[in-house]
């Protein structure tokens, strides 16, 4: 039996390391693409300012990239060290996209990052541009394979459980890759990275414009990032809606938590703009609602309705009862793999095996489970509502704020007078943390909303962790916190130093002294 404190600490450690890693990833995804856009202008126009821009933002990209790689590698090992049962149970499926990511995207990205950084004097402009595009493509392909793997956890398709090996096995790689959840999630996440980079570039450019330093570079960077950002933000909001639509069908419990839907209501359903959900009372306090909006948002129809927690818990009770024979048959098959009756019983109830596993947490012998234990397991199928509900609203509010910001940014920059709007430039600097917070909130919605499953409706989280000691977990979490604190201090120091120094005053990262005159101020 797993120590539930160890499970919680394993979750905490994974959440901390993933949230930390996810501070760097979106900027890498977006900035690589923005670099490609800047270098495209350089190659087409041959104006040195665009080369200087690419090199300067490329330096910031490389600092961020290095930290992203360092923090990402530990996570792949974490699956094996802290989630060994999970790795064993779904490794055949989960391992494939991770391996492809490592072999194809990561090596491609890393190789071409080197060429991008040090190839300015060795490659022709067209060749260097191709390299920059390959870096951008490689970064985003890395994200694709990770999200294909993650989408399997959210909406498991293309796999089946083999009772002979007691593991899940891949049955269709195309089904895994073209999983609707993977598609919507990849596009939403990648474009969110574009928004992050656009806010970062407008913010740093605004910093220069406020101080009247590197004005030519800052005006052009601001213009490009504003256009890049406004389109990306429109995309990320549209794709967020698509992801919600896909998620509503694949994970109704996550949707119920996101919307704090305790009871199933008739269409058209209202949207809870503000609410203070109480999990123990299964109700909301201080609710502010928008009539009809939820049906429109989630089902794209006024007639559409989605199940609330009450309905979902009833469904869970039924599925837990159906999962009990699946678990008992599996135990028989474990002792005697050739037992045909057990195999037949397992096949008949296979789809609810995960619900049987949920009950095992409270009743190790599931055949002896009491109605109270079944109800308790059913209640577990609903994620923690308040954090999911509020994380979702924080993400959406920040997304809308960034859209408003970019619309204003485009208006000012197209009028060519953004440098005169000091209030807006100050706002742009203060906007820098916003997309990072929105990204973290989005991650929380996706992963907290998946609970209590590591693989939705198949493998509960409580079964997935390794059987470490409590002391080991506390030691490793402390180690990660200390190490990552050092990392963030180093990252911030390098970033701030590079930004304060500005383009063209220090060698390195391919900067060309011929194109880098002394600083303007």
């Amino acid at each position, binding site marked *: 039996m797993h120590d539930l404190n160890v499970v919680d600490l394993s979750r905490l450690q994974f959440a901390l390391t993933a949230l930390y890693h996810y501070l760097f990833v979106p900027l890498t995804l977006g900035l690589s*693409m*923005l670099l*490609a*856009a*800047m270098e*495209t*202008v350089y190659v*087409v*126009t041959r*104006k040195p300012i*665009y080369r200087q821009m690419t090199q300067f933002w490329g330096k910031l990209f490389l600092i961020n990239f290095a930290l992203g790689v360092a923090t990402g590698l530990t996570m792949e090992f974490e699956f094996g060290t802290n989630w060994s049962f999970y790795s064993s149970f779904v490794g055949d499926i989960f391992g494939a996209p991770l391996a492809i990511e490592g072999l194809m995207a990561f090596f491609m990205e890393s190789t071409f990052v080197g060429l991008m950084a040090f190839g300015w004097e060795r490659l022709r402009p067209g060749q260097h541009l191709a390299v920059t595009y390959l870096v951008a493509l490689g970064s*985003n392909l890395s994200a694709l394979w990770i999200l294909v793997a993650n989408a399997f956890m959210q909406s498991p398709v293309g796999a089946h459980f083999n009772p002979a090996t007691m593991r899940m096995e891949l049955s269709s790689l*195309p089904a895994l*890759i*073209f999983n*609707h959840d993977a*598609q*919507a999630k*990849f*596009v939403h996440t*990648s*474009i969110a990275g*574009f928004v992050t980079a656009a806010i970062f570039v407008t913010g740093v450019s605004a910093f220069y414009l406020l101080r009247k330093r590197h004005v030519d570079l800052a*005006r*052009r960077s601001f*213009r*490009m*990032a*504003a*256009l*890049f950002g406004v*389109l*990306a933000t429109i*995309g990320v909001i549209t*794709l967020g809606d*698509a992801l919600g639509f896909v998620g509503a069908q694949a994970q109704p419990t996550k949707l119920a938590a996101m919307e704090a839907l305790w009871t199933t209501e008739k269409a058209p359903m209202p949207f809870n703009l503000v609410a203070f959900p109480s999990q123990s009372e299964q109700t909301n306090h201080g609710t502010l609602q928008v009539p009809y909006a939820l049906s429109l948002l989630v089902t794209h129809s006024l007639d559409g309705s989605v199940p609330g927690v009450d309905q979902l818990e009833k469904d869970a009770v039924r599925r837990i009862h159906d999962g009990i024979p699946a678990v008992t048959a599996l135990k028989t098959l474990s002792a005697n793999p050739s037992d045909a009756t057990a195999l037949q019983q397992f096949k008949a109830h296979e789809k609810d095996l995960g619900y049987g596993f949920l009950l095992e947490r409270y009743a190790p012998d599931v055949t002896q489970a009491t109605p109270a234990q079944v109800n308790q397991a059913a209640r577990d199928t609903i994620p923690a509502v308040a954090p999911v509900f509020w994380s979702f609203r924080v993400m959406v509010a920040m997304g809308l704020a960034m859209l408003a910001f970019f619309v204003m940014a485009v208006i000012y*920059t*197209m009028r*060519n007078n953004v440098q005169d709007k000091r209030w807006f430039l100050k706002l742009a600097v203060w906007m820098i943390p916003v997309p990072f917070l929105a990204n973290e909130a989005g991650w929380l919605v996706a992963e907290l909303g998946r609970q209590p499953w590591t693989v939705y409706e198949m493998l509960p989280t409580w079964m997935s962790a390794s059987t470490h000691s409590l002391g080991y977990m506390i030691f490793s979490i402390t180690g990660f916190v200390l190490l990552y604190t050092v990392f963030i201090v180093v990252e911030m120091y390098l970033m701030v130093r590079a930004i304060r120094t500005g383009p063209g005053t220090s060698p390195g990262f391919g900067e060309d002294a011929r194109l880098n005159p002394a600083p303007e101020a």
Partner: protein
Amino acid sequence: MKTFLLFLLYMVLAVLVILMAILLGNSGAWYFAWLVGTTMIVLIAAAGASLLDTQDEHAAQGATHGDSP
């Protein structure tokens, strides 16, 4: 010869795009949307920079001719 090679390159790219649209149209619509959307975002951002250069050149010409805006 250079023009022919460029023509060939662009034709190959066009055929590739059509093939991807056919292959991804049904099963991978969002992936295809990402390819098209990202290309559009990158090109519009690049066009915005070129437009800024043109605006600056016009402003400079206007200043030289004494009719600055």
